[in-house]
């Protein structure tokens, strides 16, 4: 599978990443090579095989929902790159 520049840009946007010209070229080459390699899976006949979507041995193990404060406000904000007294601060969302 060959990745072109357009596909790379689209994927990069979805992943919220960006590339300069040089790294873009390298990433295209590297992804194309890996995708060629994983294309090998097409050799395996999976007709009538259901996808395996859950590895847990038990599902829906629920506990009582007890109200508690696992993380207080100040502790929650302690790692913020930018904050005010109550909130995380981010750059302007609307221009």
């Amino acid at each position, binding site marked *: 599978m060959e*990745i072109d520049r357009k*596909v*790379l840009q*689209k*994927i*990069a946007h*979805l*992943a*919220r*990443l*960006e*590339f300069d010209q040089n790294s873009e070229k390298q*990433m295209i080459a*590297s*992804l194309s*090579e*890996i*995708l060629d*390699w*994983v294309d*090998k*899976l*097409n*050799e*395996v006949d*999976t007709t009538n*095989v*259901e*996808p*395996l*979507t*859950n*590895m*847990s*041995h*038990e599902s829906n*193990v*629920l*506990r009582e929902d007890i109200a508690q404060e*696992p*993380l207080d406000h100040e*502790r*929650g904000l*302690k*790692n*913020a*790159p*930018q904050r005010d007294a109550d909130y*995380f601060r*981010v*750059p*302007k*969302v609307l*221009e």
Partner: protein
Amino acid sequence: MKKYTSYFQIREDIEKGITSCQKLVNYYLKNIHAKKHLNCFLEVYRDEALARAEQIDQKLTRGQAGRLAGMVIALKDVLCYKDHALQAGSKILQGFESQFTATAVQRLLDEDVIIIGRNNCDEFAMGSSCENSAYGPVLNDLDHERVPGGSSGGAAVAVQTDMCLVSLGTDTGGSVRQPASFCGIVGLKPTYSRISRYGLLAYASSFDIIGIFSHCVKDCALVLEIIAGNDEFDSTVSQKEVPSYSTDLNYSGKAKIAYIKETLVNHGLNSEVKNKTLEKLDFLSHQGHTVEAVDFPLLDYVLPTYYILTTAEASSNLSRYDGVKYGYRSSNGHNLESMYKKTRSEGFGEEVIRRIMLGTFVLSANYYDAYYTKAQKVRRLIKEKTKKLLSHYDFIMLPTSPTTAFKLGEHTSNPLEMYLADLFTVQASVAGIPSISIPNGLDSNGMPIGLQIMADDFQEANLLAFSKYIMDN
């Protein structure tokens, strides 16, 4: 001080007055200092470990100490320890401090372990050589030009070089077993869901599990029985009762062992690794165990399946690192979206970016069925076929890695070459079954070779007992 390779020796010597927690911590600190150049610790909790050692020595005197008093451990840089820095080997978590303690870590603390520091690793556990850390590569103590394996390489070297007795790593596709093999120690990946992952930074959630490094099987068994089991903070952890692995390590009877033909005719397999594996199989056969060759034609498809699924899960799990709530934030963004993009592009290393891109691609609308769903189907086949083998055999044995520790830089130019280092470890990860790497001699360069043993789901007791039997004989 003598080198201890067993917690039970330590505890005995503490009781005899030969050693103490304080002596042990000082000894390990000295080793850490002397071998700083290996770069296996990102942080050493010197004062804290000494203070805790004093407290636990007092508890020991009073006869009130926990089951792990005198055990000094280290943690891979992906496990939360409250109010301690955590970076996952990444620049994007610069300045981050854990707000709570991982369940597995807390259970060890409750039994009086002493945590001596935090170990370097491949960024977000993505790598097989410990060369992907933003904080520089880790070196193998047996040959400084060689890698310790990855991604839990720092935690492996810490045990290898006697900087602590035991360490916790994580194993998504071999990240505990492969470094254990490269460093000549024991590395266990338990059954998927055996240990709570609360407080473990997620990489690929249908694969990730905490693993244990030690010198002897018994220490591994003891730590496992303490950290395994249900946890109200992790809905994916198994509720199954935890056996007392450490007191049940006598293997009696004859085992039925399968080895996969395809693993031993693989062109990437080093001949010395192959011969040591065959010698061990031969030995077991002479001891009266059944050893049979079996086919596993899906072997070639295990790695591609693994890479599609883990990168998909990683792209989702790592979306949380966006510069808003914690860690690094780029100052070059002019609005929210460009802040996200700049932060992530500047904060993540190359391999992490590659995996996020690959994962986003295989999950994107046009390619989802062709890649992601296809891999989930092949995963089912691999799991079923592996489980079928394990319904006829007690264990499957194979080399842990096709080679011994390779040189730094040997595979860094081509990601695919690096991925092949995981060829033999990913099967257990894809199938979710327990697997262990134990030392199996040295190659002609003096580098350790690992023997990998896989067992069926939740058969850790049997697996550990059989591993001990092999190591003792």
